[in-house]
Structures are given as structure tokens and as C-alpha cells.
């Protein structure tokens, strides 16, 4: 297991709850991410997704536990881990372009001004920002445009690990689709690893190799790791035709709707909390058990082979 590109081991985060007690957001959370993998994490608001991401980014220290990337323990932020923050985090006194060149110049200190500018403009254009817009301040942009600047800033730096906190939340469906496609293109053309938080189940299925499911907090758990057994390249419209699509989707909906609540609030009792691996594949004959068309709210629908490792 220690050979994984990214290994999260017994991560625990507690905060003072403001009334003299302690709030345990998650306890002994453990999972791995392989190099080049695209992983999405789904969970209800407040369960601790951003907290996990900040720890992965090296911006926050967990109460206990470790994050190991490339065999090295993460002990602080690094240019190898690019972040798109949930609230964009653009620098409001810089123009749109300068917000991106800021990052590119940090990544490539030896580049000339012109090179930095050209590279930045390329990525801004990729997210659909060109012309006058790039000279405007973030406060003069719409929410979706700001989010795109933040995406351009992170993508332009080609980090080994891209950490995306609801990067497409403020975008309209059309722009969202375009940028999802761009993200996939960038990701496919490199061996970057992507760890992305989202609330959108369909987006997660379209993009991810694997979806991590979190239960509600406190004592949230990364309870399941669902493989997306739909071959790439995936196409937004064609993907729904795939036999596995609804089976996976139903499983996710059912988890978020019912089980995320039922599984909440259980302390770890000292054990390592690894997600159960869920492999749903209706195409592989014989191997897959029958799919239950409408999961009835049972704890583990019989159609799924949930394998604990």
C-alpha cells in the first residue's frame, strides 16, 4: 500500500467546538490515490472535504496522521500541489492576468516576462477568458469568471497533484461542460493526479476513475471507494447509455441520500478507517451480480459487491 502515489494514513482532525469540548471532524481516515488517477470526493456540506484538501495541500496540519506523497511526508505547501480554492482566493488588487502570471512566475522563476505572459494568456484563453477581460480586476468579474481565473492559475502550473475544491460550482452548465472537457484534456495529456471535491454526482461520474464517498460528520468517514467502470473517453451525452451508469448513479444517490446519515457519528475505535471498495460492473458477464433496478434503501444493495480490504 505504501507504494501508492498519495497515501493518507490515519488522518484525524479535531477542532474545539466552541463550548469547551471537542469536535472530531474525521478520525483515522485512510485512503490512497494512485499516480495519474482522477479521484472525486462526494459528501454533504460540512463533512470535512475542504479540511482534508487543506491537509493534502499542506496548508493545514491534521491533529494526527500523515499524508505521504511520492514517498515523502507532506509537511507544508508546495508548487507540486496546485490548489483551486473553494472561494477562488484571487488577489483582488491584481488584474486577472496578473493573478495568473503571479503563479506562473513563481513556478518558472527563470522565464522572461514575455514567456510568463504568453503562457498565462494561453491558459486564460483555455478557460474562455481573453481580450479586455484579462485586464480587469477580480471584483469586476462574475463569480463564474473568477472561478475560471482560479482554475487557469492552478492548471498553468502543471502541478503533480491538482487539488480542486468544487472548482465548477459557480459555473453555468455550458461553461462547466467546456471546462470539464479542458480539465480532462489536460489530465489525459499529462500524468497529473487529480483530487477533486464536488457536489455534483453526474460530474463526478463523468470525470472520475474513482469516487470516494464521505459520511456526514462529526466522525465523518471516507466510507466507500466506488470505481467508475465506464471506459474513457467518456462523452457527456453518451455516458448515460452505458449500462453501468445508472447502477453507479443510483448507488451514489442512495449513499448520499440515506447511508451517509446512517453511517454518521461512529468513532473509529482506534482502527484504521479504510473505505470499502465498491465495484459495480454490469457488463462483465458472470462476474457481476444482478443489478437491482431501484435500490430500496437497504444498507448494502445486493447488486453491489462491497469488498473490505
Amino acid at each position, binding site marked *: 500500500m505504501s507504494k501508492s502515489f498519495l497515501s493518507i494514513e490515519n488522518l484525524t482532525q479535531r477542532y474545539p467546538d466552541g463550548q469547551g469540548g471537542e469536535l472530531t471532524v474525521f478520525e483515522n481516515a485512510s485512503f490512497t490515490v494512485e499516480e495519474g488517477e482522477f479521484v472525486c470526493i462526494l459528501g454533504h456540506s460540512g463533512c470535512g472535504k475542504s479540511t482534508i484538501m487543506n491537509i493534502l495541500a499542506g496548508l493545514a496540519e491534521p491533529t494526527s496522521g500523515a499524508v505521504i506523497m511520492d514517498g515523502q511526508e507532506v509537511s*507544508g505547501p*508546495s508548487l507540486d500541489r496546485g*490548489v483551486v*480554492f473553494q472561494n477562488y*482566493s484571487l*488577489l*483582488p*488588487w491584481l488584474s486577472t492576468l496578473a493573478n495568473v502570471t503571479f503563479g506562473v512566475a513563481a513556478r518558472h522563476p527563470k522565464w522572461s516576462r514575455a514567456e510568463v505572459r504568453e503562457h498565462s494568456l494561453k491558459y486564460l484563453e483555455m478557460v474562455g477568458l481573453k481580450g479586455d477581460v484579462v485586464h480587469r480586476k477580480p*471584483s469586476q468579474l462574475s463569480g463564474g469568471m473568477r472561478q475560471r481565473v482560479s482554475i487557469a492559475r492552478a492548471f498553468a502550473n502543471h502541478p503533480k497533484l491538482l487539488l480542486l475544491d468544487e472548482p465548477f460550482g459557480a459555473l453555468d452548465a455550458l461553461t462547466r461542460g467546456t471546462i470539464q472537457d479542458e480539465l480532462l484534456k489536460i489530465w489525459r495529456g499529462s500524468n497529473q493526479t487529480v483530487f477533486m471535491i464536488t457536489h455534483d454526482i453526474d460530474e463526478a461520474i463523468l470525470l472520475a476513475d474513482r469516487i470516494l464517498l464521505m459520511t456526514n460528520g462529526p466522525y465523518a468517514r471516507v466510507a466507500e471507494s466506488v470505481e467508475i467502470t465506464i471506459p474513457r473517453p467518456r462523452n457527456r451525452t453518451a455516458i448515460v447509455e452505458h449500462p453501468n451508469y445508472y447502477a453507479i448513479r443510483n448507488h451514489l444517490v442512495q449513499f448520499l441520500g440515506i447511508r451517509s446519515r446512517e453511517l454518521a457519528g461512529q468513532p473509529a475505535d482506534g482502527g484504521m478507517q479504510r473505505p470499502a471498495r465498491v465495484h459495480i460492473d454490469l457488463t462483465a458477464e458472470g462476474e457481476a451480480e444482478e443489478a437491482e433496478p431501484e435500490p430500496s434503501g437497504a444498507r448494502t444493495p445486493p447488486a453491489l459487491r462491497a469488498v473490505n480490504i
Partner: protein
Amino acid sequence: MDKLSLNQRAALLSIVMLVVGLLVWELSIPAQKAVGELTEYERLTGGGAPKAGVPPPSQVLAKAWEQLSNPFYDAGPNDKGIGIQIGYSIYRVLTGYLMAALVAIPLGFLIGMSPVAYRALNPFIQVLRPISPLAWMPLALFIIQDSEASAIFVIFICSIWPMLINTAFGVAGVRKDWVNVARTHELGPLKTAFTVILPAAAPTIVTGMRISIGIAWLVIVAAEMLVGGTGIGYYVWNEWNNLDLTSVIFSILMIGVVGMLLDAAFGQLQRAVAYAE
């Protein structure tokens, strides 16, 4: 009336108020008798000497015209043009102010960044800040032994606090998200300070600088009255001793105008560093 913009209407009203005010002032002052009309008795009792009565605005305007048409003449220690006097005051204010900025802004940065430094220095700041800057004057004169430098020291000590406190406050209040952006881009502490924290805190810092320059200009007048020699404060005091109230009123107006210009300059700077979130 409806066709004028808000600004135009306000300007018009200002002019009306000015004219009415000056007219009332002018009319409320009884004309002084010319020397030729004085009786023997009046001449003997000193009634002919210019009474310390308030001069009418027409006289002040005439004085202003006279002074401003030749502001830089220098006819000995007690007779210098208004331009030279104001020049001295501005020189002292800027010298003391710049020294204060050089101390306050880096120190404020330190205090803003480090909770330990904040707590350690806070008691000193709290005790020193409420001291009237002029209260330092005797000590300064005794230690520095130089009236010029003492005036500058007083400016230094009065302008330091707003800059120090605002810098510390601004730096401490920089959004964590922005610092995190610097951290994820592996910027060093110095680079972070200059490219993220300084621009983020600049509006608050410049507000402190603006407050400081205002206070410094208030204090220099009083300080120069005490130390004497040159400067607009000394000029006011000197003209008062000469019972030349016209000059006193004229210089009061000049103090106001220069103060306004200094403030406007910092207002400009404030606009330059402002940003909308």
C-alpha cells in the same frame, strides 16, 4: 436649477455662503478712524495705535495679496515671506514624519505578523500613545539640546502611533486565503510580505499615514510656537506679538490650506492603493 448637477449646485451654495459670510464680517466691523481725525486726547491715551480689533476681510485679502505676490522674501530673522515660513514647517513635518514611517511601518509589520510581538509591545504602545506630543518637548529640548531637532522629534513621536497601529492592524487582518495563495506558490517570507501582505494591507496602512500627517500638521504649529525661530507656527505667534491680527488671520487660513493639500495628497495615495474585494 434642475439642470445643474449636484456638484454644481453644491459649489454655487458654497460661494453664496462664502460671500454672505464675508459680507457679514465686513459690515460688522466698525471702520477705524484715520490718524488725522484723532483728537489730542485720543492721541495721548494711545487710542490712535491700531486697536487689537478684528480686521475686516478686505484687509485680510489685501494682506494675502501682498504676501502671496512675494512669498519668498527674506528680510532678516523676524521678517520672512510666508512661503519660507511654510517651507520650514513642511520640512520639519516631512522629516519627522518620514522617520516615523521608517520605524512604524516595519515595526507594525512585525507586530501584525507575530502575536508574541504584539502582546509584548502592546503595553508600551498603550502607555505612550495617549501622551500629548508637546509633553515630550521639555525632555526633547534637554536631551537633544537643539530646538530644531526637538520640533522634528515631536513630529516623529506624534505621527508614529497611527501608522504603527494601522500597519499592525492591517497586516494582522490580511485574509488567510491570500497568504495561502502565497504559500501554495512557495513564496519566501520576504516575497510574501511584499507581493501579498503589503498590497493587501496597503489601504489600512495608508489610512494610518493620512491620519498621521494630519496630526503632524496640527502639532507643528504648536511646536513652533514653543521653539520659535522659523515656521508658520512661529509666524502666527510673532504676528500676535506684533498685534498684527490681519497677518494672524491670514496665516491661520494658510495653515488650513496647507493641511488640506497634505490631506488631499494622501487621499490620492489612498485611492491608488484601494481595491475592491
